[in-house]
């Protein structure tokens, strides 16, 4: 029986559970002996001209060996904006601010000490003379340029435009019985991986840099470092230690990583940096940060005739990956629906806030949130059950690729089945009955039922000729095997799953297979882990390499057994070749590796990205007197094709659901009008805890893709994409009978309470103890 599809426990766990992982700050290496520590001095002002930076007092502090400012690094290139030609390249980020600081938390200088505590002390002695400039914080102000511009050379805050807003059809909604439009906020959130950013760097006598950095793909990190340092990538070795979560925010490299490497070269001494959580919350890229205007129109029978999405994206102070997010949102704008007509345009602006980058889902949760909110707004307007509106408008099941109006090619899907499955699993009808009773009784705690349908894109790849990944599989004479992969796990469990894939082909036990990643000298090429690409491309490459290895070994076995290769059968149970009809005449793979190395490196190329889909139902209790939301249930159908290890796939789903739900009712990065971050510590940022979520209910559905032999699509971001709108919709649904149509995320008690106060039906609850004696503890 195949090991694939079974709940194999992770091989990496014993280490994590006993000695703990070896994260960058844990790395002990003789090359790092005597390393100095780098501490960043960061701007406390959102927008200011830097008149001078005086490090003299800091240099006299105990343990300080050096200090550097933007002027010292002025010869280095900017961290370039992504997608040249699409994003304004004048809006790249300097490694240390030079003449102007553009967000609170921007690195301005570094102090170098023998001990990290000394760095924290000495950083306070760096005297920076700031001349404040008008901060540009509000998105609309930024777009109009009224509040000033961040980059005078560009003379605009617009970093990129996606589609022509002036070219939107004037007749898109002609013929609609009902048209609803609303501007909604997909708020800025912090990826906040538990491990903050870090670097350990040393330059060898050969002039090469070795850098340990927590990342999502050592090869991409090497490229980014090379660009920022202005050197040949061949001169850099990036090593990826264990990585304590990433969620999109550890792709490539940040200015701080490059500065630490630069310091190590300048001082001829190994250098280390481990950021504080405060630094992490103000200087690691944030996610989402879109203002969306949705317009939806159709008939009173529930048929949606037209949908329009207009996006205003906040890139933060510099154009990084966040500037590109509208492209992904637009690609997925109509989601799983068969709208008659759809349009989407976007514009990205810079503001004096932390730069925005990828965050779990990166552009697709924003698309789903917009369309799912629009569907509910439409359903409320025509007075139809939101489930019925979805039923009417979902694309029917398809088995041949379906091309959307936005150019996405959905590989396979059965969206109506996912919706019916989740409604059944949630017992939707009973929930509505329960809700009706509470409404009739006027309970203080009202029940909300929300849903979402989604389709997302995974494994998009950036390369021409189709998304791809490489893998090497080698058999050793002792019967063990090693896999080299271009993916880069940080919690996903590739060490276990890649071993399962090879084991299934080669008959070598999982615990005898070592999986290696994240060393650019060992594995020079690779796409890393992000966009939920790893299994469908990296895993497929491991399987392909294993199969090709059997072919290579077959010829050697034929020579060894003096038989015709065509007469040999591979017996995975014994990990050996045998002559057909004569099982005694056999040779194990291990022996074939004894005389000559037995390995295959291969590249798997997919025909394109895949499009996982699903549907969520969320159930909340909302206290109509206090606005407090209690998330009671999340039921999720997430179809990501064939599942290789259900235990790990479920783990991805749980984590995604929680992160998405947290955006709906808890998490938000907040700035005041001057650009001061008000959520710069874990005491202020409402990071989701165990008490704020229930256990989740997962229903399985697996529609294989034909785009890889495994039949697998990506699962890493599904939960985040589906749960945010389901939870948001459920909160609004709880108050729908009072006339509440929309509450922006996060639906904090204050926002919910305010929505109730201004709702037409709120008076019902203004008297005391209305209705029932039901406990407030929803």
């Amino acid at each position: 029986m195949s090991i694939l599809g079974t709940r194999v426990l992770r091989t990496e766990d014993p280490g994590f559970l006993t000695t703990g992982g070896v994260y960058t700050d844990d790395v002990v290496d003789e090359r790092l002996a005597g390393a100095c520590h780098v501490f960043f001095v960061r701007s406390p002002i959102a927008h200011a001209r830097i008149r001078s930076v005086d490090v003299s007092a800091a240099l006299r502090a105990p343990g300080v060996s050096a200090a550097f400012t933007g002027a010292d690094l002025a010869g280095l290139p900017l961290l370039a904006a992504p997608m040249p030609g699409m994003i304004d390249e004048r809006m790249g980020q300097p490694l240390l601010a030079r003449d102007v600081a553009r967000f609170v938390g921007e690195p301005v200088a570094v102090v170098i000490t023998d001990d990290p505590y000394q760095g924290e002390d000495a950083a306070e002695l760096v005297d920076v003379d700031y001349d404040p400039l008008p901060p540009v914080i509000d998105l609309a102000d930024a777009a109009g340029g009224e509040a000033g511009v961040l980059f005078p050379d560009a003379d605009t805050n617009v970093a990129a435009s996606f589609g022509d807003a002036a070219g939107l059809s004037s007749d898109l909604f002609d013929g609609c019985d009902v048209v609803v439009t609303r501007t909604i906020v997909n708020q800025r959130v912090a990826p906040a991986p538990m491990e903050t950013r870090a670097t350990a760097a040393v330059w060898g006598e050969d002039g090469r840099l070795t850098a340990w950095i927590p990342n999502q793909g050592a090869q991409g990190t090497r490229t980014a470092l090379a660009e920022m340092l202005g050197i040949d990538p061949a001169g850099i070795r990036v090593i990826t230690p264990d990585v304590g979560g990433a969620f999109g925010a550890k792709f490539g490299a940040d200015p701080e990583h490059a500065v630490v490497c630069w310091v190590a070269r300048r001082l001829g001494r190994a250098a280390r940096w481990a950021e504080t959580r405060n630094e992490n919350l103000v200087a690691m890229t944030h996610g989402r940060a879109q203002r969306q205007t949705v317009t939806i129109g159709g008939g009173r029978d529930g048929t949606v005739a037209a949908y329009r999405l207009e996006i205003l994206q906040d890139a933060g102070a510099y154009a990084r990956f966040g500037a590109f997010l509208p492209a992904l949102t637009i690609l997925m704008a109509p989601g799983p629906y068969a709208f008659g007509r759809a349009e989407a345009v976007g514009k990205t602006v810079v503001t004096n806030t932390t730069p925005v980058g990828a965050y779990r889902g990166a552009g697709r949760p924003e698309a789903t949130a917009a369309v799912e909110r629009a569907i509910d707004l439409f359903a409320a307007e025509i007075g139809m059950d939101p489930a019925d509106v979805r039923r009417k408008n979902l694309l029917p099941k398809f088995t041949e690729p379906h091309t959307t109006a936005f150019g996405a090619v959905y590989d396979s899907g059965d969206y109506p089945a996912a919706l019916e499955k989740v409604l059944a699993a949630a017992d939707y009808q009973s929930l509505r009955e329960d809700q009706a009773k509470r409404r009739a009784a006027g309970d203080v705690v009202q029940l909300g039922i929300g849903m979402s349908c989604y389709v997302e894109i995974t494994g998009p790849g950036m390369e021409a000729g189709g998304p791809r990944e490489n893998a090497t599989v080698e058999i050793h004479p002792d019967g063990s095997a090693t896999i080299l992969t271009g993916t880069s796990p940080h919690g996903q469990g590739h060490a276990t799953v890649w071993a399962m894939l090879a084991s299934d082909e080669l008959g070598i036990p999982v615990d005898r297979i070592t999986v290696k990643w994240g060393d650019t000298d060992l594995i020079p090429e690779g796409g890393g882990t992000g966009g939920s690409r790893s299994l469908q491309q990296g895993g497929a490459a491991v399987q392909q390499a294993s199969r090709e290895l059997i072919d290579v070994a077959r010829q050697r076995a034929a020579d060894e057994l003096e038989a015709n290769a065509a007469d040999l059968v591979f017996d995975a149970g014994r990990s050996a070749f045998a002559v057909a009809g004569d099982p005694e005449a056999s040779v194990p793979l291990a022996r074939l590796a004894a005389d000559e190395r037995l390995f295959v490196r291969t590249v798997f190329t997919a025909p394109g990205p895949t499009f996982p889909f699903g549907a969520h139902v969320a159930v909340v209790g909302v206290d109509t007197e206090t606005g407090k939301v209690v998330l009671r249930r999340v039921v999720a159908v997430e179809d990501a094709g064939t599942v290789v290890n259900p235990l790990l796939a479920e783990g991805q789903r749980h984590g995604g659901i929680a992160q998405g739900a947290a955006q709906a009712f808890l998490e938000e990065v907040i700035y005041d009008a001057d650009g001061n971050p008000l959520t710069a510590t874990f005491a202020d940022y409402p990071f989701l805890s165990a008490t704020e979520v229930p256990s989740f209910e997962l229903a399985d559905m697996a529609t294989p893709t034909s785009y890889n032999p495994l039949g697998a699509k990506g699962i890493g971001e599904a939960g985040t994409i589906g749960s945010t709108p389901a939870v948001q919709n459920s909160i609004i649904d709880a108050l729908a009978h009072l006339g509440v149509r929309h509450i922006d995320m996060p639906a904090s008690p204050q926002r919910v309470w305010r929505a109730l106060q201004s709702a037409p039906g709120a008076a019902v609850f203004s008297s005391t103890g209305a209705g029932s004696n039901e406990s407030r503890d929803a």
Partner: protein
Amino acid sequence: MQVQLTVNGQARSDDVEPRLLLVHYLRQRCGLRAANVGCDTTSCGACTVLLNGRSVKSCTMLTVQAAGQDVTTAEGLAADGQLHPVQQAFRQEHGLQCGFCTPGMVMAAVGLLAENPHPTEAEVREGLEGNFCRCTGYHNIVRAVLAAADATAAGMTP
């Protein structure tokens, strides 16, 4: 100043700066790097260790405050190469992904079960409120703690 304490059963005596946090002492001086620093506000619990059997956040204690006391880190939990029932349950239930919160989460769970050997799901969630995890959504962590409680009730030594 000189401080004497017991770490994972071993008596130690070290000269430390008075302001040295216990977590940094464990990581830098003892070479015990399972406990991690995940925040600077006593919020996340990645640094949780046991002090005389009760879970504490080692980022919020000075080393000198642990003088004369008994500190247990995740490294000191497994005995004779056998995972502790809580560690075993975390593996069995897939209660960890990236692993960064894990040593602290496990120690918090051990502390929780010492105080309340048969917690309900709600009690587990409340007991772990001070330990953050970004990967698991807490689902499998809660299952793991409940499973560890069951395993302990079934006769395994905590």
